[in-house]
């Protein structure tokens, strides 16, 4: 009995800890999300197959991709015009691509619900099907006031992959068409392997991240790292201490602590299919 109670308490604590990992939503927000789910008939969204991901190198002809920014599970990239015939001068920002390769269909749908929940207008936005666009399992679009028939954004889920495309500024580049871009992304997702039921998308290998646990501000420390060599690496250095990570001329990664306090170094590795793996290491930095 005593053991059972302890086990129950442990399970409860784990559950609470897990629940706290995501943002805590107020009753009003939860109610709003519920209304959005009803407005956009989430329960009726077609459910597709789990996919291996969305290739980072998806062919978006005529656009130049900016650096990948890792925001939690979301990858964010700005694309610029590379060919003026696509609607804007070369080098000018065209659109922003946000994507998430989730472990499950439900998580991807949650991302889409989040994007729809952020819409301030009380109007219901049209589905891609209503616009005659066969993109994703479920998707919606926002009309633009910049020109008749123009779309300001397209958001859709294809299996476990959520995608949102947002025009940078259609008033400056009114000829930009997002639908062909969204269709190309959808094809790229469909071109990846279909996962078996219960299988999760493969995250990049990130076997080891280590560093000395104590350091003095103003010095530099080698980072011990074993990661998929093909993965994109994104470093975050935070907490009340200070520091930064740079690659030295010797090709090694170095941590440069610059201020005293506890420091957490987090490495996000991004695979070619847009999945993300993370590791963190913590250390204490002493004043110089």
């Amino acid at each position, binding site marked *: 009995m005593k053991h059972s109670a302890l086990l129950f308490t442990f399970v409860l604590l784990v559950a609470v800890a897990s629940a706290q990992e995501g943002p805590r939503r107020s009753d009003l927000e939860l109610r709003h999300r519920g209304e*959005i789910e009803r407005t956009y008939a989430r329960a009726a969204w077609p459910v597709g197959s789990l996919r291996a991901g969305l290739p980072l190198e998806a062919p978006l002809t005529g656009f130049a991709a900016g650096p990948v920014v890792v925001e*939690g599970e979301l990858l964010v990239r700005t694309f610029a015009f590379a060919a003026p015939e696509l609607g804007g001068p070369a080098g000018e920002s065209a659109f922003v691509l946000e994507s998430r390769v989730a472990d499950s269909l439900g998580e991807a749908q949650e991302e889409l619900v*989040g994007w729809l929940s*952020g819409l301030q207008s009380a109007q219901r936005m049209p589905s891609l099907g209503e616009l005659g666009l066969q993109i994703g399992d479920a998707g919606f679009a926002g009309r633009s006031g910049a020109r008749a028939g123009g779309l300001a954004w397209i958001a859709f889920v294809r299996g476990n992959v959520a995608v949102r495309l947002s025009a940078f500024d259609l008033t*400056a580049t009114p000829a930009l068409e997002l639908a062909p871009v969204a269709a190309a992304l959808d094809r790229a997702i469909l071109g990846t392997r279909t996962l078996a039921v219960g299988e999760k998308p493969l995250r990049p290998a990130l076997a080891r991240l280590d560093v000395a646990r104590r350091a003095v501000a103003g010095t530099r420390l080698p980072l011990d790292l074993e990661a998929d060599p093909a993965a994109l690496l994104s470093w975050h250095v935070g907490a009340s201490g200070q520091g930064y990570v740079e690659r030295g001329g010797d090709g090694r990664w170095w941590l440069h602590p610059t201020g005293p306090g506890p420091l957490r170094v987090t490495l996000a590795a991004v695979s070619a299919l847009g999945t993300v793996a993370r590791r963190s290491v913590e250390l204490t930095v002493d004043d110089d």
Partner: protein
Amino acid sequence: MSATSRSVAWSLPALSLVAGLGRAQQSQPASPLPHLVIERASRVADPKLAGGGAELVFRLAPAAQSTSARAEVVKEGQVVDTLWSGTLGAGTPVALQWDGRDAAGARCDTGAYWLRVSAPGLPPVQRPLQLVRLGITELEAQDGAIPGLDEFQMVYFMKAGTYAFYATPAVHEYRNAGPEGALSDLDQDDGEPRPAVAVHTGTAEPVLDGGQYATTAFNYPLAYTLGARPRLELTFGLGSTSATGLARDAGFPFAAHELRVRCDEGTLDPTHELVLPGGTARVDFPPLPREVGRHERTLTFRYECRASGGAWEPILGSETIALRLYTLLGAPRFAAGASGTQYVGPWVEVVEHFAAWKETLGLASGDAGQVTEVFVKGFFGQNGGLTRAIEGVVYDAYPLGGDGGATHYHNFTSGNMRLSRLLNAHALGKFVNCSDNMSATTTMLSMLGVPNMRPVRLGNMTLRAIWGIGSPGYTLDLWGGSHAFSYHHIVTDDDAATVSDTCMQLDEDGDSLSLPGTPGWNVRRPWNGVNSYKQLSATNNVTKRLESLPGLQ
């Protein structure tokens, strides 16, 4: 008359030749023997300081006589430079300043020298001179003289065009030690003094060196709470470089003498004021203004020396270092957990935006209410000399070329604000909605030290006339045939007794259901009552709910 001097002569004597010292002595047998007198001579000099050099003042005694004479700098018995030669008039002193260069014009090394004055038939006189190299290579801002945490490292959010957070290093915000491999930290490799580093005025990126963080030369802004008394720790340079490109020491310490530093704008800690190569000193400054904003300071440092037990004597010359300081209302505040991804300090671009708004609007910023007013009016723009909203953003609505009010900078899934993207010339697009504004406003005001900032989430709203950010004026048709919010986000710092809104203005003309409207700023506007936010914003009974501070990216 002939008088030559390569160095600066402050005053030359009115020289008059007389028949001869011998005849003069014959006519005035009671006069003392003529002799040379050094009235003043620098004991220590650093000619590489601005206005620096060795001072030498001498004359011939007794009065009413004259002779040819010369003043020289001597090192180890060899004449390094002749400072002056000519006829020395009786009674009128010659004042010279040696610029530390030899006869060929090259800068001399640090070390021991003599300042010597000689004349035919008279015993020469000389004084020792120590040539040194003085200078500050690092400044570290510390908590002020008033107890409590009031100094904060500032943060940049980009590096070489990519998003990367970088806090100004706590070990020193100012560094001027020369590039990697430099012969010395105080001089350039040709022996010329290394100039002070100018303030880094960029607001997005730190100082970079070939895409990497610069580590040897930077001058970052400092952040203190308003009214704080800044304290700086100074680090002195280790050595110098000869004109021939050789590393040299600083020329001190030397026997039975000590040096100290002074600052025109501050007060040195008497227990921490002596100067040694590589050593440190500490200086306190008068209180900063009691307003949030930007403050430029130019610090002038001077040096003094004394023999053991003697009085302090000034060393000619000074060095100046320009600093930029920002003042905050209080300690920056961040959402719980936000510190896991970056250092929790004020962002340079945020405080710079605020400082620019305050300056343009001409408003006070001494308390939370005033700071909120400057922020709301500055963020919204289009008033008081501000021509546009922050970073040129526009409300996301059809009539303005946008759409149905999508969120671009506030991430609903993670609850984070992508502030770095907004501040990077609206890198995620020109259009913003209420959540973007709420998220930016709460995080930026919290970063400026305004306490208790929180988002307020409002339920659906049947709108009255509003003026959206970046739009030309009021509208009753926000969405092209529709004029309602499914929700709305605003901010508060008093649990929503009053609310502020950088996203839109309300219509205060007494009839907020018709156009045109009268601008009504939402700066701590009461939620309930006459002209309240609830009354002026919507015709329905809007619900509200406090939320947690967003995270930050």
